């Protein structure tokens, strides 16, 4: 009985299998896109063109179009990379961890969170390649027998990163697609136009809902979830090792891997909220994405935020405790040097703003939650940039010290990547089921008290 009441809290309204299927499938199969969707899609496409333009110019000219130079050789491209991949950590994590812990509130938010992961990781994966001086040689990261008789540098964290991103992207896509298979079959069977029938028919692989298939599907989902959780932690740890394997002060610290993982989950949960709140309002999903869903994500967000706060404290403490003059200096430089607005901006956005989530009134107000999550997403970008630029601008040799100033093309790649994400996400909303219909049916069944 407790199952039924738990399910009832996360699925409101008078629904049947048929009405649930119709509600989600008709968003996709409805003939004409909404006017708002078209406007957003147009804007996203424009920024995608900006991204392509900036990238073409980058390929033609070189990384000098950005503000990077000696000593700050990693600029916004690496900031964007770490930020995007951090956002990409939480979709798969939230979906897998909530499945493993049997949380009924997973069902309405897992699909678009997984989509968010796939797109964010795909964008993140581009930035290190763009940042290569000669990006057309990126395939040298792949170990393959070649006539040049060279191999990748196996002892470098950058090489580990390549394997980590590859594995994570493929596993995330598989996890997303496997979960979507039954819903693609629903779309195939509801579609009335020939084109839609062929499109979804091919994607659904002929899924027909046989009991044995469902049983294997269930087993596979559980096992993939079990793999996805450690994968998330390992992948973002590799990203952190890109930093801490170097002897740059401010980076060379064993705290970096857990610090980065906490930050990644933090920004990712914020992004889940920032997407869920508008989706729910625009597509009228109030029955499926309830205030309780938002409240639960907000609590997880607050917990992740506290881990991030602890990391900030420990980062300062370990640099003091190390007794290393250079390390202590970089910490002072972060807090009170020329880049102080970055540091304090980070603290305001990531440490102070989430404290509002202690209050139930904030957790239950979609507008306030949306505001807090956007502030956190911005704060996490500031944090990534602050960590990169403050350490690099103060090297061991004072004669080498210098500042970083972004150029137009830095802005173009940042804005363009946001546009590209929006472009892919809007296509996802229009072409694929944004909520897992098959799992909602399970929730409906649990709510009616059957299946014991």
């Amino acid at each position, binding site marked *: 009985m407790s199952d039924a009441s738990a399910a009832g809290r996360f699925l409101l309204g008078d629904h049947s299998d048929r009405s649930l299927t119709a509600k989600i499938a008709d968003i996709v199969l409805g003939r004409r896109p909404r006017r708002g969707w078209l406007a957003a899609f147009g804007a996203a496409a424009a920024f995608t063109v900006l991204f392509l333009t900036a990238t073409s110019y980058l390929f033609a000219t070189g990384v000098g179009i950005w503000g990077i130079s000696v000593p700050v050789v990693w600029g916004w491209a690496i900031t964007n990379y770490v930020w995007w991949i951090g956002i990409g950590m939480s979709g798969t994590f939230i979906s897998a961890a909530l499945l493993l812990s049997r949380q009924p509130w997973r069902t309405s938010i897992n699909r678009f969170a997984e989509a968010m992961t796939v797109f964010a990781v795909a964008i993140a994966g581009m930035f290190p390649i763009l940042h290569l001086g000669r990006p057309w040689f990126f395939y040298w990261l792949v170990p393959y027998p070649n006539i040049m008789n060279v191999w990748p540098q196996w002892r470098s964290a950058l090489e580990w990163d390549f394997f980590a991103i590859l594995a994570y992207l493929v596993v995330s896509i598989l*996890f997303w697609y496997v979960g979507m298979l039954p819903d693609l079959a629903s779309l195939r069977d509801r579609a009335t136009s020939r084109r839609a029938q062929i499109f979804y028919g091919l994607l659904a692989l002929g899924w027909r*809902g046989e009991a044995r298939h469902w049983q294997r599907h269930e087993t596979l989902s559980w096992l993939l979830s079990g793999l996805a959780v450690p994968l998330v932690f390992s992948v973002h740890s590799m990203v952190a090792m890109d930093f801490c394997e170097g002897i740059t002060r401010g980076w060379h610290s064993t705290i970096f891997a857990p610090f980065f993982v906490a930050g990644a989950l933090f920004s990712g949960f914020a992004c889940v909220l920032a997407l869920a709140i508008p989706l729910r309002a625009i597509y009228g999903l109030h029955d499926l994405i309830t205030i309780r869903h938002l409240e639960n994500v907000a609590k997880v967000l607050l917990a992740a935020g506290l881990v991030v706060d602890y990391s900030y404290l420990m980062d300062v403490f370990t640099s003091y405790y190390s007794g290393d003059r250079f390390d202590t200096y970089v910490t002072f430089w972060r807090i009170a040097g020329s880049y102080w607005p970055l540091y304090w901006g980070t603290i305001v956005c990531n440490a102070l703003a989430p404290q509002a989530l202690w209050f139930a009134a904030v957790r239950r107000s979609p507008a306030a939650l949306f505001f807090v999550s956007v502030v956190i997403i911005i704060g996490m970008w500031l944090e990534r940039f602050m960590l990169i630029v403050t350490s690099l601008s103060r090297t061991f040799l004072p004669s080498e010290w210098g500042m970083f100033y972004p150029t137009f093309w830095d802005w173009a790649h940042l804005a363009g990547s946001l546009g590209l994400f929006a472009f892919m996400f809007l296509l996802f909303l229009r072409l694929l089921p944004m909520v897992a219909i098959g799992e909602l049916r399970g929730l409906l069944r649990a709510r009616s008290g059957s299946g014991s």
Partner: protein
Amino acid sequence: MSSESVRYGLLAEFGSGDRLIRAAREAVAAGYTQVEAYAPLHLEGLSETLHGSPRIRIALLMLLGAITLGVATYAVQYYAAVFDYPINVGGRPLDSWPAFIPPAVEMTLLGAALAGVIGTLLLDGLPRFHHPLFDVPRFAHASSDGFFLCIRAGDPRFEPKATRRFLSGIDALEVSEVAGE
């Protein structure tokens, strides 16, 4: 009705998941052995009722995939760093195993996931874009709100009239013939 037109089997629709599970139990109790069930969601225990426990375990396939890709990744690194292109970096051992573990771990996880997905699809017999059941118009509901039980024509106890009577007797809403390829 001629048995010619039911080369695949008889498909019966039931009103809910619970009725389908009950019908599956009754079909098994009546001695039918080639019975398939179709539902728009995972119904706990339905597959076990009809088909017993699965013989090939997906977890085992995934373990094999994990070991294969993990060991292969380590082996490539070992071969490259020890035999094909040995470089002495500050006297460190050529087989720098701590540095070779991260790619091997990532590929272990990837191997498990790939083996799981590919293995599941092979066991399911998917992709299979056409199936005799898709010719039954009502079957389109199997992906939204229809619960179906199909007794295959190959079942030793299958007899068109008697089986149809049996299905109607266990509360089937509608019984259709499935023609086959």
